[in-house]
């Protein structure tokens, strides 16, 4: 082997995967989005009826794209979405085409909430939202079982209460 070596640094995936049911939740979301888009297209094209074959082509295209999105996105997301809490930090990864990793130290956390949207409720899932003093937006962990979410909230609340200051 070679003499000269260089240390490459990369982010390791967070420890825990989200609940597998999250795939169905994302599929439902994708389905709603695609149907909404097709509905809007249908309305627009029925308004302008003298455009020849273009509307049909566009609608077919978006139907195919929507179907692909529906089939690919949830599984891809499931491979990417992971989370981890340590003694000092929350670490998450999310996204599919555009992927995002977030690290927030527990000492800088302002609030921790558990959230359940109507769709998530349907699939028995919950999210955890961790806000810091930054305008960059909260760190979210989506698609957890309510128990796991509650566990995270308890852990984070206990740890953050120990730290003084206003977390700015």
């Amino acid at each position, binding site marked *: *082997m*070679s*003499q*000269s*070596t*260089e*240390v*490459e*640094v*990369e*982010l*390791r995936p*967070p420890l825990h995967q989200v609940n597998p049911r999250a795939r169905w939740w994302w599929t439902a979301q994708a389905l709603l989005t695609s149907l909404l888009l097709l509905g809007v297209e249908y309305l627009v094209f029925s308004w302008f009826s003298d455009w020849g074959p273009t509307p049909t082509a566009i609608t077919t295209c978006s139907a195919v794209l929507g179907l692909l999105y529906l089939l690919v996105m949830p599984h891809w997301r499931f491979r990417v979405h992971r989370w*981890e809490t*340590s003694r*000092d*930090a929350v*670490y998450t990864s999310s*996204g599919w*085409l*555009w*992927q*995002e*990793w*977030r*690290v*927030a*130290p527990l000492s*800088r956390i*302002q609030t921790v909430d558990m959230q359940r949207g109507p769709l998530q409720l349907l699939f028995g899932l919950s999210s955890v939202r961790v806000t*810091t*003093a*930054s*305008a*960059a*937006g909260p*760190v979210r962990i989506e698609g957890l079982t309510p128990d796991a979410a509650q566990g995270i909230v308890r852990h984070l609340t206990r740890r953050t209460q120990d730290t003084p200051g*206003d*977390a*700015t």
Partner: protein
Amino acid sequence: MIGQWQRLDRRTLAVHLKWLGPPIGSVALYALFTGGDFNRDALIRLGVLTCCFLLVSCFEAVQLLTTGYRVTEELFELRKGLLLRQHKSIRLERIRRVDLTANPIHRVLGIAVVRIGTGEHHSHGAQELKLASLSRAAGQQLREELLQRANSAATEPEQAPEDGVLAKLDWAWIRYAPLTAWGVLSIVIIVGALTRVVDWFGVHIEVLLDAVIRFFGTASTTEVFVTLGLVTLVLGVLSSLVAFVEEWWNYRLERPNKHTYRVRRGLLTTRQVAIDRRRMRGVEVRQPLLMRLAGAARVEAIATGLTGGHEEHTKIHVLTPAIPKPEADRIAAAVAEQFPSPTASTRLTGHPKPALRRRFVRAAWVVLGVLGLLVLGGLTVSPNLLTAAWITAIPLVPICAALAVDAYRALGHGLTGAYLVTRYGAITRSTVAVRTDGVIGWRVVRSPTQRLSGLATVSAITSAGKRGCYKVRDVGVSEGLSFADEAVPGLLAPFLRRRSTPTATPVGTEEDVTTRNILDRAQ
């Protein structure tokens, strides 16, 4: 003073007389345009307008008379309202800034609006209480009191104030004022708004156009366009000069005491912004393209609690007007309290070559987009646009390519002293220095193309700034993560994986995979 409910200054009532301005003004304008001939429609419009403004003034008067405020041991409290009573309070130690502003009417009356802000972010921005208005003396007294108490709550001993003026207005700086596009834009906006208003009162735009055409007489179209262009340009330059004088008159950036930076400026509207020094998280030196070509730059503060919702406050983080770059670096160094300035850009590490490719691809998209639109228009509307397409292409292609190279050369990041520095942008070049102890998290984003070319955008999250994060764009993954790890030791380290990769000969992939697995299990 402590614990007593205080009232606003009664002279504020006089300010609300300004609400009578629009109805009186519009009646006068109407009379002017029509020669005093009021028909029924116009009367109804004017009547409705007057009623609206009367309602607004009544509401404001009630608010004024029912507002009270007091400073207690721990809180600043504000209550107001007649039917809908509101009661708000801020803990004194959370107060980060107290600003006094006075527009010309306020100044004639000797009063000022006081705004009290905290350093927290909510979904709707930082919390802010507004007192409109107090007498100037009472306002200044309140500010001293609040800032002093906010400081003493943090148990830092007060020291004798040093008379530190960091920057004063230099009239030579006015030469940079026309380099902002706002001058020309404002003329266009004013003309546009005027035609709307005139139209509303029944004078049609054709009449105005006729007047313009008659004025030019027999001149050709080209002459008319060139003249109008020149007139707009000259008026634009003049308006930017006027704006500079109004905004930066009597400008001073100073450190009146150990805890505060203060910016004072303005001719008709005086603006005073005081920033608690312990809220400073860094500085930003911004250079829009034209300014950069002229060697100028602007300095802005990165501080928590500077993102209020009020329009006047979109500029509260601005520390200087456009000034020569060396001067900007000097001021940045003074505000950052580190010499040489972290924003003076000699020590930055550049970014890998794929970042240049990404910039070329983006430039190509811009060129394709513009030309595509023109060609599409040429095929469907008028063949003239096809000619326009290739005429546009000749300057557009080299300009976009040059901007791409320039944007790549701008990219850089580094650590110097207490600051992490990142630089980016061609249209507006920003050099941002953020205190590493102000970093409250990291965000790494990778797009599909970034993953293919081994790049990432690494953002330092802070509690300051409108977006709350400062990006190191398109840095090599390994380099970017090492940089983040070094900037804030310990935060990112537990989530990083280090791999020794031989640079000379490639390793067999199977072996590589097993090493990784073992490392994974070990963790």
